[in-house]
């Protein structure tokens, strides 16, 4: 392995890490702004122009708060919980193709930390580890509200993972690959998967809401019932880590939605730009296109939050197990029939 390769990858990793952090930071600002605008208010506007320094002020506030520790038999787990939540939130960004490639210094630079063949499996694996952050934190808090929130979160995330995994199977049957880079490349032009798999997209979207614990599926931390849910006992930056992890998760799941269903970095006329203006400019536009798409999804997350009220717990389970899972299985069967229609026709003797 040559040193140039290591430098290249380190730069990509650091940039992706920094962008994830900044996006998560400014998601908190955007959330407050969007919430305010949807409620006919103006939102934060004192710290900087339009309240742009509000995330910095919030971070500073969290750092300077008293670090409260409950009387818990598991101090170690109490500390580890937020760390796991944060780490898993950041790890998924490793496999996302942010653009095709840059051609710089006589090298092709992949805009992806690593292009593994099982990228989607990797994402699903990491996301399911994310439950442990919440579960451990809620359990180690030694507080019944935290425990209740943690149990709710765990059962919710486990149930919706099934539907999420099944919904993506139909898509994978069509693409024939698990690599996110391949899937992005297949959607060149306007061949976005959402046009071929709208049902799969809908189920995946609903499950993404549930997996990130966003309204209407925020039963894990519903203030009206459980104070703060699993992070009731957390304060200072440990609390900040949980909140930050939630926003990082939102960013990543928006990105995955954009990559899987909305063409990733592709935009109409990309091949024309490559021919006439070169690879680098085409990919700058590509990154911008991807970010426009994922910002749209982040806005959608916030928009839904202030529109749809929270589900009741039994409704949530009903939706997950009795509607979404059968629906995605039906979707898989339909997709299978459409893919194999030639073979079926010859088998039946048409």
């Amino acid at each position, binding site marked *: 392995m040559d040193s140039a390769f290591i430098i290249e990858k380190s730069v990509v990793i650091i940039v992706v890490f920094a962008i994830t952090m900044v996006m998560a930071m400014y998601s908190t600002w955007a959330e407050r702004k969007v919430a305010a605008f949807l409620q*006919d208010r103006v939102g934060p506007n004192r710290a900087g122009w339009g309240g742009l320094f509000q995330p910095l002020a919030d971070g500073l506030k969290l750092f300077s708060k008293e670090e409260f520790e409950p009387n818990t038999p598991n101090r170690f787990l109490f500390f580890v919980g937020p760390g796991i939540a944060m780490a898993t939130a950041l790890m998924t960004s490793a496999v996302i193709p942010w653009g095709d490639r840059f051609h710089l210094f006589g090298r092709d630079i992949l805009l992806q930390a690593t292009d593994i063949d099982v990228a989607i499996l990797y994402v699903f694996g990491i996301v399911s580890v994310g439950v442990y952050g919440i579960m451990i934190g809620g359990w180690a808090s030694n507080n019944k509200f935290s425990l209740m929130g943690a149990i709710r979160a765990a059962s919710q995330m486990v149930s919706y993972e099934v539907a999420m995994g099944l919904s993506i199977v139909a898509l994978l049957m069509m693409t024939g690959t698990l690599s996110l880079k391949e899937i992005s490349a297949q959607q060149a032009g306007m061949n976005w998967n959402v046009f071929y798999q709208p049902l799969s997209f809908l189920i995946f979207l609903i499950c993404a809401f549930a997996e990130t614990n966003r309204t209407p599926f925020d039963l894990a931390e519903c203030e009206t019932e459980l104070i703060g849910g699993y992070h009731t006992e957390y304060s200072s930056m440990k609390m900040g880590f949980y909140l930050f992890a939630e926003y990082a998760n939102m960013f990543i799941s928006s990105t995955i939605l954009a990559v899987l269903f909305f063409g990733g970095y592709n935009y109409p006329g990309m091949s024309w730009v490559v021919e006439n203006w070169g690879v680098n400019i085409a990919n700058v536009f590509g990154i911008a296109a991807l970010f426009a798409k994922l910002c749209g999804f982040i806005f959608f997350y916030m928009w839904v939050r202030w*529109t749809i009220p929270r589900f009741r717990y039994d409704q949530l389970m009903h939706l997950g197990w009795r509607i979404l899972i059968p629906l995605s299985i039906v979707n898989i069967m339909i997709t299978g029939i459409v893919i194999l229609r030639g073979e079926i026709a010859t088998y039946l003797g048409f």
Partner: protein
Amino acid sequence: MSIQEISLSGRKKVVSNKEMTFLERMYLIAIFKGLWITLKHLFRKKATIQYPEQVRERSEVYRGQHMLKRDELGRENCTACGLCALSCPAEAITMKAAERKADEMHLYREEKYAEIYEINMLRCIFCGLCEEACPKDAIYLTISKELVPANYDREDFIFGKDKLVMPLDIAMKNNQLKTVN
């Protein structure tokens, strides 16, 4: 017309318990309707008034922070008779009277004046009885149109004459306006 059909607000709807159709049970249409409503709010005019920079217009009779008035020559009206303190149901007003000296003719209208005049804003209930009791037109709650500002210490809510007496330039300006009219 039966009583069930009368609707004074015009927004009454008769609730029905009919089974929902399949399309309604999917809720997707309802969700999109809801999203459309919230989206419209995104572009609506904001109801916020940016308080310190922008002040909501107060009504004519709004009772805010007290003001001890001056007359048209800029002399204080208050003669420290103590009727306001007596009328105050919350016992928020205290004062100490003093005799006007010969060289203070331009400062105080009557020969007796309030050397110390204090209102405890934590006790005050802004009922306006002091204003009603005042025989000298001295104390008013309706002029300043200001809220008593927030503070950290209880001592800082005891407002003395430095905060209560009408500023001299305002008194002079009022006087000019009066002569012009």
